[in-house]
């Protein structure tokens, strides 16, 4: 009995983390503790903890007198809606969640298991940074984690919930994971903090402005989503996990659905406004195609001229990439290309079929774009689509102009099923621009140009020129888009396509 009691005593000590006062302080900051977060993330009672009794081995600076069990991070595995995930959660109440050699070893252990067993790793970051007392051992620990992030990339999904400070080198572990979710006002990420910034550059900036959730979801695009508090962030992380495969070999998850794959949406017949230059909300199409109108948007606040995220069709996950005519007319620019390219590559890595909804007038012109390297950034999206071997279904709703047409999962980039609505205009450019080039000599003659423009529109502002060449497989009724897409994806479930052997490609980073 004594031995059992000893176990319970030790467990209780480990679970107490940094003690009641520090836990209260954590709560006062509006944050939950590492264990509370795990409780919310995993199915009730499913958490199996590892390395509860691990302690650090440092002796300098009096560290030998303070060796709390667990060493500032809680690790283990459990289930999310019955599916296996591995989890680590940094404990800010123990040494400020700082990363020691042993702390890193705990994380590495579950990452190694996740790789062997093919299940996602969910990290919850809340750490002051390196354990300074350990010096280079701590830095080595980071690097061990980084190396595993790199090897796990594309093998198992890695999700980071940044729920407190994450600064300095520590940011590079979340940075290499697939998704970063942040909590507004209580989390921040930066390479150098506000004080260093002030010393070095004289910029005065708060931690929230420099690296808060809004900064990273709207400006830097480091983070994929921001939530009001820990509870909401974790609930939405569970929702995201439900969309993701367990690994690159598991295939997409399937769940019962209550939505007819053949559901017609007559309202889509009027989605495209009568005037070709009037915007409309592409998200309406996404929601009406998706099962139950359920859409998990990734990077909703960044590069809003392109929409990325997950839906389900017939209960199975589909990645959606869609131009958004409401923002910058749906042009591709540097930010949109980067955002969508990364999303397409995630989907391809994890065998998630991609649905591309196209209304793109072209690439955004301007010196800012050219100087910023739109050539190479735009190429990322082109590259990502071109290399992707997952099922690719494309629907052109309206404009598909120029090079941007090629980029957006065109037939020529191995699009499997390419649909167009009758309102589609697949052409090198808009009628007005084309006519000005083709009939330069008539530039002064407004009436002649107008006639030429009408003529060009009649000949090219439609999907049939492309359909005649087989670049479009079928011109479909907008109302039947869900049914058509569902059937195409069903038909493509057995798709097998391999790229030539290579060590890896050389995407224009």
């Amino acid at each position: 009995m004594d031995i059992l009691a000893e176990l319970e005593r030790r467990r209780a000590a480990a679970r107490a983390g940094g003690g009641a006062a520090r836990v209260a302080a954590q709560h006062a900051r509006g944050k939950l503790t590492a264990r509370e977060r795990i409780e919310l993330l995993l199915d009730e009672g499913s958490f199996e903890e590892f390395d509860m009794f691990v302690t650090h081995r440092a002796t300098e600076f009096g560290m030998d007198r303070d060796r709390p069990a667990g060493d500032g991070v809680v690790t283990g595995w459990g289930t999310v809606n019955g599916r296996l995930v591995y989890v680590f959660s940094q404990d800010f109440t123990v040494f400020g969640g700082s990363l020691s050699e042993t702390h890193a070893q705990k994380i590495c252990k579950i990452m190694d298991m996740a790789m062997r067993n093919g299940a996602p790793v969910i990290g919850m970051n809340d750490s002051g940074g390196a354990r300074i007392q350990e010096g280079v051992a701590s830095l080595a620990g980071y690097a061990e984690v980084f190396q595993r992030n790199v090897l796990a990339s594309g093998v198992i999904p890695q999700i980071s919930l940044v729920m407190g400070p994450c600064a300095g080198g520590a940011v590079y572990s979340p940075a290499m994971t697939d998704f970063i979710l942040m909590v507004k006002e209580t989390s921040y990420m930066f390479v150098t903090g506000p004080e260093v910034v002030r010393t070095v550059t004289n910029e005065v900036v708060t931690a929230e402005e420099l690296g808060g959730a809004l900064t990273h979801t709207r400006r830097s695009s480091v983070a994929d989503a921001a939530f009001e508090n820990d509870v909401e962030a974790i609930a939405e992380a569970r929702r995201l996990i439900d969309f993701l495969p367990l690994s690159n070999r598991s295939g997409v998850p399937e769940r019962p659905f209550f939505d007819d794959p053949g559901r017609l949406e007559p309202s889509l017949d009027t989605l495209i406004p009568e005037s070709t230059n009037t915007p409309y909300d592409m998200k309406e199409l996404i929601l009406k195609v998706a099962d139950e109108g359920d859409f998990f948007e990734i990077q909703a606040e960044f590069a809003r001229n392109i929409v990325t995220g997950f839906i389900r069709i017939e209960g199975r996950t589909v990645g959606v990439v869609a131009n958004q005519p409401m923002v910058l007319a749906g042009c591709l620019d540097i930010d949109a290309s980067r955002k969508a390219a990364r999303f397409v590559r995630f989907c391809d890595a994890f065998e998630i079929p991609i649905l591309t909804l196209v209304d793109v007038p072209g690439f955004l012109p301007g010196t800012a774009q050219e100087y910023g390297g739109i050539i190479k950034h735009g190429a990322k999206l082109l590259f990502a689509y071109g290399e992707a071997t997952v099922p690719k279904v494309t629907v052109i709703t309206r404009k598909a102009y120029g090079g941007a047409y090629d980029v957006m999962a065109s037939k020529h980039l191995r699009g499997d099923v390419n649909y167009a609505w009758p309102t589609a205009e697949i052409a090198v450019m808009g009628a007005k621009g084309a006519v000005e080039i083709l009939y330069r000599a008539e530039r002064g003659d407004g009436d002649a140009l107008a006639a030429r423009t009408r003529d060009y529109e009649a000949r090219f502002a439609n999907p049939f020129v492309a359909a005649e060449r087989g670049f479009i497989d079928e011109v479909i009724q907008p109302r039947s888009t869900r049914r058509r897409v569902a059937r195409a994806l069903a038909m493509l479930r057995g798709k097998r396509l391999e790229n030539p052997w290579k060590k890896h490609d050389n995407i224009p980073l």
Partner: protein
Amino acid sequence: MFSKILIANRGEIACRVIKTCRRLGIRTVAVFSDADSRALHVRMADEAVPIGPAPAADSYIHIGRVMEAVRRSGAEAVHPGYGFLSENPRFAAALAAEGVVFIGPPASAVEAMGDKIASKRIAAEAGVNTVPGHPGLIADAEEAVRIAREIGYPVMLKASAGGGGKGMRIAWTDAEAREGFVASRNEAAASFGDDRIFVEKFVDQPRHIEIQILADRHGHVVHLHERECSIQRRNQKVIEEAPSPFLDPGTRAAMGEQACALARAVGYESAGTVEFIVDGARNFYFLEMNTRLQVEHPVTELITGIDLVEQMIRIAAGEALPFTQEEIALNGWAMEARLYAEDPFRRFLPSTGRLTRYRPPPEGPQGSAIVRNDTGVFEGGEISRFYDPMIAKLCTWAPTRREAAAAMAEALDAFEVEGIGHNLPFLSAVMKHPRFLEGRLTTAFIAEEWPDGFKGVEPDAEALRRIAAAAAAMWRVAEIRRARISGRLDNHERRVGSEWVVEVSGCRMTASLSADRDGTSVVIDSGPTLRVEGAWLPGQTLARLRVDDVPLTLKVAKAPGGFRLRTGGADLRVHVRTPREAELAALMPVKRPPDLSGSLLCPMPGLLTRLMVGEGDDVEEGQPLATVEAMKMENTLRAERSGRIARLLAREGDTLAVDQVILTFA
């Protein structure tokens, strides 16, 4: 009988007329402006003729263009609906000149009743009670004040050519009389091209009760009882019913007789409405006669079983009325709620845009009630800024007033409209208001019951418990589905629990569930068991449930950790959590939304017609700051508090979007 009728109108009324024509085997011709090429009335009609650009002045009220459409289509008769050309004598004359029948009263009657000053004199001569007032037109604001003082405040300033609440202002003070005169005149000029204004006494405790009449060419005049239209907002009718809960048979008969007398006096034919204002002592005064089909005619149809459009067509074709006064029934109770594209949370300002979702409740018999929805829109259609913001008229009929109101409340809860702001929550609130249910109405009902504007409905504790029980039962269904995802660890699946904590409207309740084949029994806060029944599956946007056998219809939308539920005018963010989750959620800080009270935001898309202040000006609370024109209505934006103007961020003539900042306060 005619073989082809052109409907010189749009929206729900054009659709309404087409329906009757179809039933009678008459071909229909729609007309449409550029903004309406995809409109429902165009889809429903057998033929459709374009009549010009979006502004009504260039299309629907452009007599030349409408006449051209009549000629092109070869229609033998024209139904004008209401509004637009329905009471325009020049249009009737143009039709007559070409031998096309105008389905409406003779031009002489329209003209006699079209002028509010002349009509009052004729009414008085016919023995109809009239309101004290000044018979002449008002030249300027000062004269308005002088006459208003003579009659005694309160007074009403009205556009001579007015209707539909446009060009009307009530004044209680000299300042309001001055301001109201100017506003009425401007609005009248913009809306009717006629800026004549007159003044009359404003009746106390007034109820708006009107008599529907039908008259044929053979001298028969009957009335079809009354409609009460007291539920008005700024003189715009919102809810109508028939009969009136206020009239006794004697008053009803007297009003009916006077209405018929007036119709006879002007040689009336077709359907018409004599509007009365009725005071608290059941004195009734003639207000005006509407020489057309009224918006709210369906309630009369529901209690009498008579199709008014059919009768108008038959009368126009020269047929005699097939019934006598004694044969006209008054059966049960009918209500009409007007669905406007107006956002009640933005002081009822017009909202435009695409109807991403539009699912009216099922029509026809529903239990002992009947539901009818007259609409001119469809899912995927566009609410344009060019026309009236009314998009549907939802009607219910039942044997009693209570039942009709209950059926209406239920139908409103089941009416799904997304993509635009609309007044469904407000209509629901009225339908559940105790004073409304008691029938204690006046035309000031809305102003009195919502003096600070409508801010939504807060359900009472009992309603919250029922909603919480439903939410918990629904959440459990959703969670069970989530736990059935593929790729689970066999034998280590998630077990979805039966204990939940529901948080709604700041209330936290425990919900203990036990589900069986037919429903879920829910114990809220260890109280009595509530039985939740009815089919709801995850993803469905409408849950038609019964809680303890009382209907509860919820509009359901996903939201992190729960739902957004809308019912009975309430818009609720509901969280459903495990007890442990709830415990931890309680530790989360409460965050406040950003404060925008330091700015004047444009409450609707529209044109900034006037900016009345400059930077650095000190303003008083309630002082007009700017006017925005939208939907032909001039809306004055006032200071919500006293302060100094810091910056002007928009200029006169700018087209503004919703929530665009017009100016900021220091």
